[in-house]
C-alpha cells in the first residue's frame, strides 16, 4: 500500500505534520477499497466522459 506519510512529506508544499492524523486514515481506507476494484478494469477501457458515453 502507499506510504502516504512519505508522500505527504515529499510533495510541495508538504502537508503539515499536524494534519496527518486527519488526512491519512481516510486515504488508507479508500485505497484498501479501491485496489481490488482497480484490478478488474478491462485493459481497453477509456475514462468516463459522460452518461451518454456509457455504452
Amino acid at each position, binding site marked *: 500500500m502507499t506510504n502516504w506519510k512519505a508522500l*505527504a512529506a515529499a510533495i510541495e508544499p508538504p*502537508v503539515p505534520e499536524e494534519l496527518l492524523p486527519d488526512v491519512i486514515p481516510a486515504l488508507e481506507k479508500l485505497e484498501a477499497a479501491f485496489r481490488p*476494484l*482497480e484490478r478488474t*478494469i478491462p485493459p481497453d*477501457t477509456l475514462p*468516463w466522459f*459522460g452518461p451518454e458515453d456509457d455504452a
Partner: protein
Amino acid sequence: MTVSVTIGEIGAALRGKRLSARELTEETLRRVADANPRLNAFLTVTEAEARVRAAAVDDDLARGIDRGPLQGIPIAHKDNIFTRGVRTTSGSKIFADFVPEYDAAIVSQFNDAGAVMIGKTGLHEFAYGVTSNNPHFGAVRNPWDLERIPGGSSGGSAAAVAAGLIPLATGTDTGGSVRIPASFCGVVGLKPTYERVSRRGVMPLGLTFDHVGLLARTARDVALGFGIIAKHSSGYMPPGHADLRGMRIGVPENFFVDRIAPEVMLSFRAAVQTAAALGAHVTEMRLPDPEALNVVGRIAQLSEVSALLARYLGRRGDFGPDVLTLVEQGRLIPATDYLNAQRLRRVLARDFSRIWTHLDCVMTPATPMTAPGIGETSVEFGSFTEDVRTAATRLVRPFNVLGWPALALPCGFSSAGLPIGLQLVGPPQQEDTLLQAGAALEDALGIAGRRPAV
C-alpha cells in the same frame, strides 16, 4: 397574498392583477429580513436590484409582455453561482470579496424569464461539505429545528425555500449537495443529468461531478424552473392529477436499504406502497455495486477539487478545517489512481445502465437519517457509527458518478417533526419521468404543504 403558495398560483395572481411584482417583492424582502437573522439562509440580499427588476416586471405585464411562468417570481441563487456586480463568495474567506463581472448562464436565463433575484444563499465552504456550518459566514440553520443543520452544500437555498421565504432557488450538486439539503429541509431538489444545465459561471468544484440544480416546494415548481434552464427542454409540466400507471419503478434490495434509520425506512416503504397504489409496477431489484461508485467518486472528486483549490494553500489559515483536510487528501492521490478511477467509472456505468432495459426509474431513500444537530460529527445506525459526511452522501453520490438525473422529495416526518426524503433516479435526459413521479407522489402523500413555523 404571501409567497407560501406555488409558482403557478403566484403567476396567476400577477397576471390577474390581484398582486403586483412590486408588492410580491416587498413582501418577500420583509420575510427575508424577519427570518434571516434566525436562519442565516442568505449571505447577501439584493434589495435594490430586486426592486428595479420587480418594477420592470410590472411595466412589462402592463404592456402585455409575457415572459412566461417565472415572470415576477422571487428567486435566490446559491453563492457559488456568478452574479454580475453582486458578491459571490462560494462560502469561502478567500472569495469573500469576489464580485463577478458576468452572470452565470442560469442567472441570465432566469433574468431573461423575468424572475426577480432576491439574494444569494449560504452554503458549505466552497460547496465542499454536507453541513453548511460555515466557519466564515456562520451556520445555516434548518427551519424545522434551528439547532439542526439544513444539509449541504446548498443549505441556504433549501432553508430559504423550506421556510417559505422564496418559492425557487438554485443549487449545485457534486456529491449530493442539492438532494441532501432537500431531504433534511423537506423540499424538492432536482439534480439534472450531467451537463443538461450549463455550468458556465458556476464556481467549479468536482470537474466531472458538478451539476447545477434547483430547489422548490413542489415537483411542479421545479418543473417550471427546469423548463427555463434545461438544454433541449420539453417544457414538460406534470398534469394536475399525475398518476403512475404503467411506470416501472425499481426498488433496490441491496445497499440502499442498509444502515437506514428505522423511521426513514418506514416512511420510504409507505411511499413505495403509495407508488404501487398509484398504478406503478414496483419491482424489487439489485443494483450492481453502489459502494464501488462511491469509492470511485471519492477518489476522482478528491483529486479534481484539489487541482482547483491547492493553489490557495498559501492561505491555509483561510480554509475551514474539514475542507483543508479534503484538499490535502486530494493532493496526495496519484494521477494513475485518478485515471483508473475514471476508467472504472465507465465500466460501472455500463453495468448500471443495463437496468434501464426494464425500468423507468429507481426509488431509494434520499438520506439514511434526518437532519443531524449542528456540530454533530457522527450518526449511529444501531451499533454502527458513521461520520455525518459519509452517511449523508452514500445514497446520493452514486448518481453524480453515473451522471443520471435524480429528484429528492419529502415522503414523511420523523417523530421529532423532521422531514424524511426519498430519491427518484432515472436514465439520462429523463427528468420529465422523475418530475411526473414526484408530482404524483407528493399529491398522494399530501405533505408538500406542511411548513415549519419560523
